[in-house]
Structures are given as C-alpha cells and as structure tokens.
C-alpha cells in the first residue's frame, strides 16, 4: 500500500480515540474468530492424522499424538486406495496442464498484443465472451466426444483442453500490456531473430512472474478437479486423488482405520498447502492482480 498516510489520529479528541480503540477491539475479535474458523478444521485434521484408531474413538483432543508414521505407512500401502499412484497421476495431469496452459495462453496473448491482423479484435472479443461459460454445462457433449474418440480412461481430455484457457489468457494479456514494450520485439527483429525465437527467448523470460503465478493456479485447479475426471476415468490405476477421496466416501467407513483416513485426506491436500506456505505472498498478489479486470 503506497498511500500517503493521513495522520488522522493526531486530530482526534479523547472521545474519538476511545471510539477508535473500541472499533479496533471489535475488528480484531472478528478477525480472530475468522482465523480460528479457517484453521480449526485443518488443525484438527493434522492432529487426528497423528492419532491411532483407538485414540480417535477415545475422545477429542487438540494435542498431537505419536502415531503419524504408522498412519502414514498404512495409508501409503493401503490396497483399496492406492494414494501414491493417485498422487502421481494427479501430478502428471496437473503439471502438464499447468505447462500447456501458461505457454499457450502467453502465446495467444502475444499474438493478439503484438500483431496487427484483420480478425484481431474479433478474436479478442470472442475470448472475452466465452470466458464466463462454465465447462460443466457442456459435460454431456464432452463425455460423448471422449466416448466417440475412444478417449475415456485417457489423460488427453484432461490435459489438452488447458491450451485454451480464456481466464489465463486474459491475465497474460494484461500483464503484457503493462510490461512488454513493442520496441523489444522490433529490436529482436532487427537483430534477425525469428518470431518464434523472439517469443521463446525474449517474451517468455519477461513474462516469468505472470507465468509462475498462473502455473500455480492452474496446477491447483487441475489437482483439485473432480467433476470431469470423475466422468471419464474409472480404471483403478488411472484414478486421480479427488476420485479416490470420493471412493473413500462411498466405502463402508465402519471398517476404516480412522487414523489412516485422516492421513489420506491430509496427503491429498498436503502438496497444495506446502506450496501455499512457501509462496503465499506471491499467490495472494496474483489473486489481487487478476481481479482488477479491465
């Protein structure tokens, strides 16, 4: 925040200062309550993943226990829920999607930002218009298409569509407008660089921060995606993490080792939490920048 601070407090009367103090106490109380609400369930998840089945039925506590490794071993080697395989599958899909979506969104944004052609305006307007259409409503056609092309139980329908991501394109376009002067492109041309070379070697590095933040968002979105993968994947060794979570819900939980169940849930969200804890500032700035759409 680069605002000039108005030293408003200096001009306040005693009564004004008391009012300010009261409002501050009120605000911090609400913030504390919301913080508690946001963290409580995840803290509970963490604690319970360290407790054994017996302990979990013995009662409620907020102190971690000592069975984390045991639960981890049980969860990792469970026969019915092959979580290592699921995490690997999810990772492959999410990582490929993140690469494709950022590279091609930047490429599309570059094409529209740096070149003048007849359909430029039309193409841009088209992308803006389709941005709001959710993918769920065309799921029927999507599944039908996958059936027809024999692409069920295949990762291609989960990865390839990420080449066309209107929202990511839009973020890239805005970022390009703010930092990529056309003179750079022209200079590269004068030096004899081909258009592709210019994009790959000059534009991509300049777009680095935007690409990084969008890679994180699309990785997370793909990692968490349940609806479409749930429709076209049913082979056990191809299942992704969210599908496995859904299977867990449908299974007979009376037979479960609850410690192991908590550990499985923890494992499914752990990669995202770790990335978030490392890069939260960067990610929040990304949300903030992406929101001021023009």
């Amino acid at each position, binding site marked *: 925040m680069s605002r000039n601070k*108005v030293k408003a407090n200096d001009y306040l009367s005693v009564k004004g200062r008391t009012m300010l103090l009261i*409002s501050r106490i009120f605000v911090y109380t609400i913030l504390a309550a919301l913080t508690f609400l946001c963290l409580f369930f995840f803290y509970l998840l963490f604690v319970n993943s360290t407790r054994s089945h017996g302990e979990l039925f013995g009662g409620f506590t907020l102190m971690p226990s000592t069975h984390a490794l045991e639960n981890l071993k049980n969860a990792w080697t469970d026969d019915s829920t092959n979580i290592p395989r699921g995490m690997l599958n999810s990772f492959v899909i999410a990582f490929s999607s993140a690469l494709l979506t950022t590279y091609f969104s930047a490429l599309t944004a570059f094409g529209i930002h740096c070149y003048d052609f*007849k359909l430029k305006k039309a193409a841009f307007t088209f992308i803006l218009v389709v941005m709001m259409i959710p993918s769920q409503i065309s799921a029927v056609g999507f599944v039908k298409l996958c059936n027809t092309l024999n692409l069920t139980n295949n990762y291609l329908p989960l990865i390839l569509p990420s080449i066309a991501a209107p929202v990511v394109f839009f973020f890239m376009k805005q970022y390009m407008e703010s930092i990529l002067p056309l003179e750079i492109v022209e200079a590269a041309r004068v030096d004899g660089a081909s258009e592709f070379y210019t994009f790959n070697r000059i534009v991509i590095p300049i777009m680095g921060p935007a690409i990084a933040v969008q890679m994180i968002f699309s990785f997370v979105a793909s990692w968490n995606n349940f609806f479409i993968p749930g429709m076209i994947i049913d082979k056990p060794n191809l299942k992704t993490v969210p599908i496995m979570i859904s299977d867990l819900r449908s299974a007979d939980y009376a037979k479960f080792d609850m410690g192991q169940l908590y550990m499985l849930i923890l494992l499914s969200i752990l990669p995202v939490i770790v990335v978030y804890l490392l890069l939260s500032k960067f990610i929040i700035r990304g949300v903030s920048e992406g*929101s001021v759409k023009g």
Partner: protein
Amino acid sequence: MQNKEKKVKKKKGGISYAKWGYIFILPFFITYFIWSFLPQVLTFVYSFFKVYTEGLNEVAPEFIGFGNYADLFTKTIGDSKTPTILLYAGNTMIMWILGAVPQFLIALLLAVWFTNLRLNIKGQGFFKTVIYMPNLIMASAFSMLIWTVFNPTGPVHMILENANLVSKEYDLFFSVTWARGLVAGINFLMWFGNTTIVLMAGIMGIDNSLFEAALIDGANSRKVFFKITLPLLMPILTYAVITSLIGGINMYDVPYILSKGNGTPNNTTTTLIMFIQRLLGPSKDYGSAGAASVLVFIFSAILSLIVFKFFISKDGMKDHTKKGGKRK
C-alpha cells in the same frame, strides 16, 4: 499503442507480420473448437434426441424435438408436485445464497477494514494468508474432512454432544438444515477470503484523494462507505457476485461428497449439476442430460443478467460499469 504498431511496421518496409498473429492464436482456437465449442454443440444437439441403450450398446438416437425438455418439466420424485429439476434448482440456489450472503458481507467488511487508514490493522499479511488458504484446498477433500468430523463418531460431533446440542446417535447429515448449512458453510469458508482480496484490490484502485477530501469534509466512516467506497466498487462487486453466482449454479463437489452423491436427506442437497451427472453417469441418458444442461445455461444467463441490471440500475454508476471496471 495502435500508432506505435503502425510505425514499427512501416520501418520494416512493408513486410507484414499479420500471419504470425494468426499462427500464434491458432492453437488456442483449435483447442477451444474441439474441447469446448464442439461439446457445447453436441450437448445442444443431444437435448433434442432420445438415446436408447441395449445392454452396453447405444442404439441410433431418435429425434424427439422438445420431448426431453417437456419430460424434465413433468417428471417428479416422491410426493412432490414440483418438477424434479425445479426442486434441484431450488436446492442449488438456497445453498448458494446461504453461503454467498455471509461471504459478501464479511468480505466487504474485511476489505473496508483492511484498507481503512484510521483503523490501521496490523498483521494484514498473516490474516490474508489465513483467510485465502481454504480457497486452494481441494473441495472434495475439504468436504470429506467436514463429513469425517461431523458424522456421529467424529470429533466435532463429540464436542456438540458434550455441549448438549445434539444427541449421540443424531446424524447431522440427515437433517435438512444441517446438511444444507454445512454445504453453505464450506462454500463460505472456501470463498470469503478470495472475495476479500478481490474487493480490497477494488478499493485500493479508488482515487485516494476522494477519501482524503471526505475526511477533511468531516464525513464519518459510514458515509464514506455508502457515498464513495460502495458506488465506486460496484463494477468489481458486480463482477464478483456474477462469478460467484455462476460458480454456485455449478455447485457439485461439496454436496456430492457430503451426501455420497445421493443428495441426502431426501434429495434436499441435490444440485443441478449432480442431477446432470446422474442422468449422464449411471443412466447414460444423454438426451435428458443435454436438455438439463441447456436449461442450466439459460438459467445462469438470465440470473447473471438480473444481477447485472440490479447492480447497475442504481443511478450515477453507469459510467463505471462498462466492462467491469476499467480503472487500474
């Protein structure tokens, strides 16, 4: 910008780079055509056909005009007289509103507090990090967690028992209020942080001299909020509400996991997309599923338009509303 481009081109002695523009945007449009446009068209086309299956094989679809649509508006379940699809639309909207109202109220409050210089809230980085976190958590895992801790053997259920709020055997997921409330609660927790950050960005984009002038003129914080912040925030707020609405209409993961896909109790948490999934998955009724999808699309479009009209009809805002806030 436009002028600069022209200049760049002239210098190069008339070599046109236009074809590169087409080449670079081609992958996007091919992909969009195959994986989004084609499915949309197929969904639409199938909504006019009856698809029969014999065993595992699909028999040639038969054109039945608006038959699938008529069916959707006549089929009912249980004792209810209301068509199923309207019941599910009602569920979806109730659960969205239950979550979205607190989501936007809290987000507005937080955004105003965080940007208020007089309040000067400390530890904003920490609070933002915490409230945004649930947004990145896998919705299905989060729901699974909530189910695990709220079911009769779970720890939160134990807390509620100890506080004498529920009896030992009482399954919260078989109470309409609790089941819907928990779905809405998860949606609220997942989205209020995101909305806060979006609205904060909007408030910080407002020209600071307006706030300073109001302060000097002796306006209190309520006046500043209603006369300056809120009107100038309208474009972004409208955008956020419409995005949330569309997300709400497409609600799926949370109620699906909480209710094991059954919409328990008694289909009161079944959403529109869960309905489409049922038609599509187990029963392979592409025709009805297609018709339901088209209706959901029309429903979203109409509601978005209503929200848009509602938010911009307040006078004096017409200048700011074009394209959701052009200010940087």
